Each structure stands twice: as C-alpha cells, then as structure tokens.
C-alpha cells in the first residue's frame, strides 16, 4: 500500500484484468501504473476521489470506521459520495452486512462491536462499491489469531467467488501463507516473488 515506498515494482496482477504497477504509488510523478486499464497519472483530486470510490476498497489495520456512525451507516458512506439515494443505499448496505453475517449488528456503533466484527463491517464498506481491487493494510494486525483466520478466510473467499484482486500488506507469515502470491519487500525494494498456490510456503514462522 501507499505507506510502503515501492521502488521497483513491475508486475501484473491477474483477476482477468491486469494491474500494472511501476514506480511509486504515493507519488504520481515518478512513475506510472495502470489500474483496471486506466492510467493512474496526473489525476485531478476529483478523478482520484472517483477512482478511489469506484475501483478501490480499503481495509485498514485499525478498521477506521467512523465512530459516531452505526455499522450500516459506515457501510453506506461510499455510496453517499456516489450520490445513491438514501433508501437504496440502506438496502445495499444491509445486503452486504447480511453477507458478512452482521445483520443484527447493523444499528450498533463500532465501539459496541468486537474487533472481528468491526473488521467485517470495514470489509463490507470496502465491498459495497464493487471495487476492482481491495487494498488491505495489515487487516489482521489488531485481531486475535482466531479472528485473524476468519478474516483471512473471508478475504480468500471474496477473491475466489467475486474475483476481486486483494493485495494484503502484512508482517505475519501465517497471513502471507494464505495468499496466492507473495512479494517480499525490503526497504522498499522487491526481493523474492513466490507463487504460493499450495499455501505451504511457510510453516508459521516469521517472515524474514
């Protein structure tokens, strides 16, 4: 994700549509990359906001739900910025919450939920705009091991069933082991790239 300085990435990620990354994500000037076939360069703030809204779903380590909004309102928010009417927004948000098994938590505020539930709300929020790609920054960093596994299962399932590319940044080898491809980055430079379709790259020891 953006926090990591990518100095040397030139890779294509497949989910049917290629993702081409070259240069530094956080600084549009030094490199170019394509996202879903669109050149991401010299975007106006409005275009950038539009792409963020429609193409990318974000999942954060600390969930980043808005504290004074209920679960369903948090999930609705991306659609609010798309200008979707309130009623439709609400229906869709409920649908996604149901998908993640959170229907009875819809009217609860984030601080009334457990970490796993919050992260699932955040995932619902990332999913509601049907993005091309989900960027997950340490999605399990604030969760216990049991919930971590659940969240990772969920992400894998999304990748499999919805065909959404999911990029996960993590320090945990157990989490990395769940992914299909592992890119090692050290001091911003890509080291080893492994295909990991068998999910047996590590036996649970720390990544080096």
């Amino acid at each position, binding site marked *: 994700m953006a*926090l990591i300085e990518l100095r040397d990435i030139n890779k294509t990620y497949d989910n049917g549509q290629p993702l081409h990354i070259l240069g530094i994500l956080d600084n549009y000037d030094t490199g170019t990359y394509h996202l879903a076939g669109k050149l991401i360069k010299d975007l106006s703030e409005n275009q950038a*906001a539009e792409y963020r*809204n429609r193409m990318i779903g*974000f999942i954060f380590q600390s969930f*980043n739900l808005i504290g*004074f909004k209920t679960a369903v309102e948090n999930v609705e928010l*991306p659609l609010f*910025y798309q200008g979707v*009417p309130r009623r439709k927004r609400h229906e869709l948000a409920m649908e996604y919450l149901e998908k993640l098994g959170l229907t009875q938590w819809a009217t609860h505020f984030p601080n009334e939920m457990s970490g796993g539930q919050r992260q699932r709300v955040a995932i619902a929020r990332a999913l509601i705009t049907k993005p091309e790609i989900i960027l997950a920054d340490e999605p399990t960093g604030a969760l216990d091991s049991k919930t971590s596994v659940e969240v990772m299962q969920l992400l894998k399932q999304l990748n499999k069933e919805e065909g959404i590319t999911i990029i996960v940044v993590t320090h945990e080898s157990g989490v990395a082991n769940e992914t299909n491809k592992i890119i090692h980055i050290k001091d911003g430079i890509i080291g080893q790239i492994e295909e990991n379709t068998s999910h047996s790259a590590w036996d649970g020891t720390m990544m080096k």
Partner: protein
Amino acid sequence: MRIDRDTFREILDSLLRNRSRSLLTGFGVFWGVFMLMLLSGGGNGFRELLEKNFEGFAHNTCIVLPSETTKPYKGFQKGRSWSLNLTDVDRLRNLVPELETVTPLTSLWGESVSNGDRLFTASVKGVRPDYVNIETPKLVYGRYINWMDIQEDKKVCVIGKKVYKTIFPEGGDPCGKKVVMDGVYYQVVGVDYNEGNMNVNGRADEAITIPMSTMSRTYNFGNQFQLLCFTAKEGIQMADLIPRIRAIIARNHYVHPEDEQAMFMINTQVLFGIIDNLFKGINFLVWLIGLGTLLAGAIGVSNIMMVSVKERTTEIGIRRAIGATPRQILWQIIAESIVLTLVAGMIGIVASVLILAGLELGMTEDGILQATFQVSFGVALLAALLLSVLGSLAGLAPSLRAMAIKPVDAMRDE
C-alpha cells in the same frame, strides 16, 4: 455539492452525534446573538421609558418667560417688571412666518379646586385651543377647550388625571359636573390623562385647564399673560429664529434686546437634541458591544471547528479514502459551521425575545404597555442574515484545513 435532504442529514448527524462539541461551539454564537438582541431591545425600551417623560410635548417648542430687567434701556432703569401682552402674539404671528403656533398662556399656582367636600390644590392654566400643539392632552373623557369657549368666556374646564382621581373618587365620566375654584363654578368638559414629566406651568395631571379669556376676566389679567409658547414650522431650527423673536418682543416692551435674563427663553429643541444624541450614542454602543460579542462568538466557532478538524483528521481521511472529493469535505465543514451558527443563533434570538417579552409583561401597568422592549422582526431577520454570513466565514478557515487532509491520513495516528 448537492444540497438535498441526504446531505443535510449527513451534516445534522455529524453535529448531533458529537453533541458536546456542537454545544460548546454553538454557545459562543448563542451568547453573542442573545446579548445583541437583549441589549438592542433593552436599549430601545429604556429610551421609550425616558421618552414617556416628554410625551405629548412638542419637540420644537420655545417658551418665553418675562422677568425683571437687568439692563437699563431707553431711559428705563434696570429692575423693572414687565409682562407679555396679546400684541406680542399678533406681532410674532405677522413678523415671523416661520412660526407654526404662537399661543399665550395665563397661569396661577396653588388654587383649590373642589367638588363637594373633595378638594385638590391644582395649578391653573388659561389656554387657547391651539395650546394642544405645545402640550398634547390625552383625553379619556370629553373634549379640550375650543374657540367657542374662548369667544363666549365659558366657565368650563379640563382636569388632570390626579385632580380627577382626587375630587371624583367614585370615577366615571365627570363631564357636565361642576367644580368650584375661587368661588367660581366651572363645568368639567374633559379629563386629561397626560402624565409626561415635561410640562409648562406644572404637571398636566395636577392642573386644571380653563379658557384663557375666562381666566383673564376672572382674575383681571387684562390683555396680559404670563407665558408665551411657540413652535417652529417643520425643518426650521428654533435657535435661528430666537434673536429675531427676542428683538420683536423687546422693542414692544422697551426691554434691552440683549437682556437675556429679562426675557428668559427655553428652547426645547436643544434639550431634545441632547437626549436624541444621547440615545444615538447608546444605540451605537449597544450595537458595538452586541456585534463585538457576536464576532467573538463566531471566532470561537472558527477556533473550535479548527480544533475539531484536527481531531477529525482520521474521520476526514476515511471519507477521502472511500471517495469523498475535497470539495465535498469543504462543503461539509462549511455547512456544519453554518447550520451550527444558525441554530445556535436562532435559539439566541428566541431566548432573548422570550426574556424581552417577560420584561414587557413586568412593565405593563393596568394592561397598558409602558414601553416596547421587543426587538422588531426586521432586526431579528437582520441578525439571522448576519449569522449565516458569520457562520460561513467562521467555517472557511477550518474547511480549508480539512480540505488539505489526504486519504492516507486515515492510516496515521492511532
């Protein structure tokens, strides 16, 4: 940004769900408006209370009081007494066309007026009907002295409120009843409820007013009288006329034209001018203080919004990360500021209006309002307009700062 119910709900949610923050922010503006309205209404009310003292008294009146001369003139020694007479009235009317009303007044002090065994010591005014242009009576019963009374030297009188209450304690319409003064019976034709504290020859409520011709005959004044009152026409400064008037009267009586003590002139225009200026000053101060307080409130809003934007960096970062444009963020913060200012301001207006209404209630005497303390609708509207302008200005700096927040800021902190 779209302005619809949805956007409004979003803003309202942000404000209502962060209640203590909103309350703190709004209080400054509430207090500013509250003070502004209260001061302006209160100032207005006190002016009206003060003006009540001059009620019914023409603002451009001048009164001439003859007194002993202090300067020798044309062979006369100083210390000579002199009186005004009816030729002065005619001369002034003919020679000073700028004057509206010129009316003589005869007066006596401490005369006993009685009705049966009820007695009141009143001052007596002998007037012509045009005296109403100097002191306007507030007649609750009957009529004032008219020209017919003058022509026929009728023995009629108009009595003041206090006289009426004392000698007619049973109340009711006293018109047609007789009162006695110095052995002469006068028929009551009217009751004057004027209670202003500005009067010629004693308070109006303690006076008995009779036709001047009747008074002159009864008390052998001849064509002499005690006081001369006149008003200037609209737009004419009385002070400009006074030297001419002084000269005309002085020549008629061989009084030195510069002998100010022999011919004392009271110009109410000067007096009212002073009071007018005083209230203009007070009004200016009221608005200065009110606007200052309001401005301080708005700056308070701006400050707290600034802090709150800082505090909400993560929230705004999240909003940006999930697709809010900088303009949407800008508008949200400005709109929050406007809504907050407006709502707090409206509450301020309502609270001050309620308090002013209570003040009016306390000031009501016998169901008659003594003074209006209430601010006008126009003033309230102006205040509301001012509030929305202030609100948007207050929101400007914080919203610009909010606009600078990048999506990546959502991941910082915490």
